[in-house]
């Protein structure tokens, strides 16, 4: 892998190469090209990120004072419910699916996903259930107000008495999201199992693809459990059954098991591709191979397996018997071991390298630090006696926002900046990128760190009003929240302006190793002129091995790189 002829590539890709789709209208069509679908996912998800973020700003506005004075309590409750739901089902999942959609076929040397039409159908469900969720703001009674867990009996209460109510729409949207995710998961798993380029054995596959595989397998075994719970809840709500209604002999705690059996593993569906992103980004900008590649990729699979055995740690205070509490405490602690292996491996990858602090690297480093912090508070939460105190307090909210904003959103930004030149064929503006990083990193810590002392002091989550002693930290958190809102502006400006006006990107601007970097930016329809023949591992930095035995770009980039 020499990348010697960067200039030649740059010169070549100045002219739009043949077959390069330069028509923006295709992003609004039922395209079956995985790259178009990937970008459709990402842009749609980002729109919902902004909506979810706006809701969060209003919540932070309410919480800047102890009294419930900005919005009505029902509105506040709808806000946090919809914020959580949108951020998970409309932003994080579709965003990561989009990223995986774009990258996995390129990284494994395939021309598309295994089932392109299924892929497109899965995507087009996203705007459908997104709209369904949004519509619930405008119906009598408003959106669901039972939190993103939708625990019965609160979720069964339906004060309007209407058949079409916020909770019903919420359940339908979540069910559709599940259908879309299962379609996606079948597609990803099949693609990764069956469509790797010749020579790409399991241990030559980039870590990102390993993490996508692990994450999508979780969807396959986890989501059905949520679906089962959601169907039963919907029947209770609309058809008069009594599965979860204690007033009629049902068992509300069973719902919690159904819900968490999926929703704990779901956090790994989210974080695994971010782990993958870290594993891709650190070697490029530290100019060193991923340290302990095999340990790192195998630990993803171990996480997949363990993630199915820890769900009760969300129910330590739900009347769970002691033996279960202790069992799940041990399993929860155990899952931090493969996670720790990854963290140490990234530090060792960075250590002693030749670091280039471009925006993707900054976001990856910032994300790693946040993840470390969240992992430590996670182990604390796994310790039952301590969790009993902070369960359902702001401490938990702080913990998961460090993972979901600190690590996941920052990791997503790292990925977007890193692959932006590949996806669009343009370079982003480095200065705006760095500004974006600084604002985000400060915003995250300002917004989410204060939640930890608040939780320790005993402030419950999901409250519209609180006792005055909590005001101090809440003011800081609110300021951080508004800063996070501001932080998206340089990002949007950067993406939009550089997509239109940015300098043309060469095939391999970062001098990175990987099949996606061997073809033009943006890649042509069907990606590879010639299916690559892989002859070495994915992180050969510092050695002279060649990654492939042929030139996958064919005549598009004639110089063999």
């Amino acid at each position: 892998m020499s990348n010697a002829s960067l200039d030649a590539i740059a010169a070549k890709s100045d002219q739009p190469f043949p077959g390069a789709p330069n028509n923006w209208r295709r992003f609004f069509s039922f395209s079956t090209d995985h790259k178009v679908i990937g970008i459709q996912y990402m842009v749609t998800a980002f729109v919902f990120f902004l909506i979810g973020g706006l809701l969060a700003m209003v919540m932070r506005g309410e919480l800047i004072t102890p009294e419930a004075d900005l919005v009505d309590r029902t509105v506040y409750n709808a806000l946090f419910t919809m914020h959580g739901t949108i951020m998970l089902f409309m932003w994080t999942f579709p965003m990561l699916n989009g990223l995986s959609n774009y990258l996995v076929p390129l990284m494994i040397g395939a021309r598309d996903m295994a089932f392109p039409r299924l892929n497109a159908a899965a995507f087009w469900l996203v705007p459908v259930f997104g709209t369904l969720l949004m519509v619930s703001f405008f119906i009598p009674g408003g959106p669901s107000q039972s939190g993103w867990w939708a625990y019965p009996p609160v979720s069964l209460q339906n004060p309007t008495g209407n058949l079409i109510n916020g909770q019903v729409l919420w359940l339908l949207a979540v069910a559709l999201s599940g259908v879309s995710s299962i379609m996606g998961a079948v597609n990803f798993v099949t693609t990764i199992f069956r469509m790797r380029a010749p020579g790409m054995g399991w241990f030559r596959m980039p870590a990102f693809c390993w993490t996508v595989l692990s994450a999508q397998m979780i969807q396959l075994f986890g989501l059905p459990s949520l679906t089962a719970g959601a169907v039963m809840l919907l029947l209770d709500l609309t058809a008069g059954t009594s599965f979860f209604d204690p007033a009629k002999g049902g068992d509300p705690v069973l719902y919690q098991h159904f819900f968490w059996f999926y929703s704990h593993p779901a956090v790994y569906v989210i974080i695994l591709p971010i782990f993958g992103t870290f594993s891709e980004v650190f070697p490029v900008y530290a100019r060193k191979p991923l340290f302990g590649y095999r340990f790192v990729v195998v630990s993803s699979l171990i996480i997949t397996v363990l993630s199915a055995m820890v769900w009760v740690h969300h129910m330590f205070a739900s009347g769970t018997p002691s033996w279960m509490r202790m069992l799940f405490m041990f399993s929860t602690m155990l899952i931090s071991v493969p996670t720790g292996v990854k963290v140490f491996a990234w530090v060792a990858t960075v250590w002693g390298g030749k670091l280039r602090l471009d925006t993707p690297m900054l976001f990856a480093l910032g994300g790693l630090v946040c993840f470390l912090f969240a992992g430590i508070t996670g182990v604390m939460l796994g310790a039952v006696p301590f969790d009993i105190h902070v369960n359902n307090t702001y401490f938990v909210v702080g913990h998961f926002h460090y993972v979901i904003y600190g690590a996941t959103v920052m990791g997503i930004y790292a990925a977007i900046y890193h692959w932006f030149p590949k996806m669009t064929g343009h370079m982003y503006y480095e200065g705006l990128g760095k500004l974006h990083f600084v604002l985000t990193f400060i915003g995250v810590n300002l917004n989410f760190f204060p939640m930890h002392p608040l939780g320790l002091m005993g402030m419950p989550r999901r409250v519209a009003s609180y006792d005055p002693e909590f005001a101090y930290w809440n003011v800081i958190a609110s300021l951080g929240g508004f800063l996070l809102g501001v932080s998206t502006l340089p990002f949007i400006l950067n993406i939009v302006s550089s997509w239109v006006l940015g300098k043309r990107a060469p095939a391999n601007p970062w001098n990175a190793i990987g099949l996606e970097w061997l073809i033009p930016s943006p890649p042509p329809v069907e990606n590879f002129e010639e299916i690559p023949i892989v002859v070495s591992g994915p992180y050969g930095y510092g050695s002279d091995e060649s990654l492939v035995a042929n030139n996958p770009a064919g005549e598009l980039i004639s110089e063999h790189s």
Partner: protein
Amino acid sequence: MTTPTTPTKPRSLSFRTVAQLVALAIADAAISVWVGRQAYLWMPPQASAEALLVDDLFGFLTTIGSFIFLGVTAALLYSVLFQRADKYDISDGPPVEGNLLVEILWTTIPLGLVIWIATYSYQIYDQMAILGPMEHMNHVPSLSLMPSAEAATLPAVPEQTPIEVHVRQWAWEFHYPDQNIISTELHLPVNERARLKLISEDVLHGFYVPAFRVKQDVIPGSTIDFGFMPIREGRYRLRDSDYSGTYFAANQSTVVVESAEAYQQWLATAAQQPLTEADNRAFREFTKLGDRPISAGWKTVEPAPPPRVNFASSEEDSYE
């Protein structure tokens, strides 16, 4: 292309590097121990025997957590500050692909660490002897090898009629069956193990007193036995900890821990009081909604009318 010594290769460690590493580890440990001490200050007052145990655990967790966090971020920070490529340097770093020994170490050491943490947490839990709803003994059925000798540090549960805790959307009500008292303030004698029966009349609620570090979901359809040991006199906040709908945040009350004499005194006076309507924030806010020029809210489940009690407290009363 490659630097002659790479820090990830233990064989090339010189005495000086080892000494430096040891010094750094000691510094890290010293700071972490200090942070772990601070952890006690971040918590509410220690008003129960459980609080002492939980805070010890939290201090321990904070110490270990700080050690790891500081160690890892320091390494990253060092890299970021001192291991940057020069502006025009496009060469690669050393092609170190891994080191089996290091990898095995950083798998087994954390494994040992989490087993240690879990075992310690288990012991704390055992001592807390939290009464779960399906639990009829007061500590965990011994998982054989675990040392549970210290389990006896808390006095056994005395045979007394439990106080009934009734919670609904959105009020707390405490029934003292022996004295036939209903109160919206929970009074408990200090240094005596409290016994409660948690009863929800509608949805899930949570019984949570931060100063006691105890919390238990209250599940409609089942009665939950619950207990803890108040050890410090004072007034503390009781909060609903499991989201229960519109006025969830307003569903708070006060716990008063007092001397045995004061407690008996209170029981005696409260029993004399006639039933009166207590102040109830949810109901108050709900009825005032009609006064608003425009209602910007959605239809809500109606709050239950304020409880009628022998002894009423107000949410505005002070607490620690």
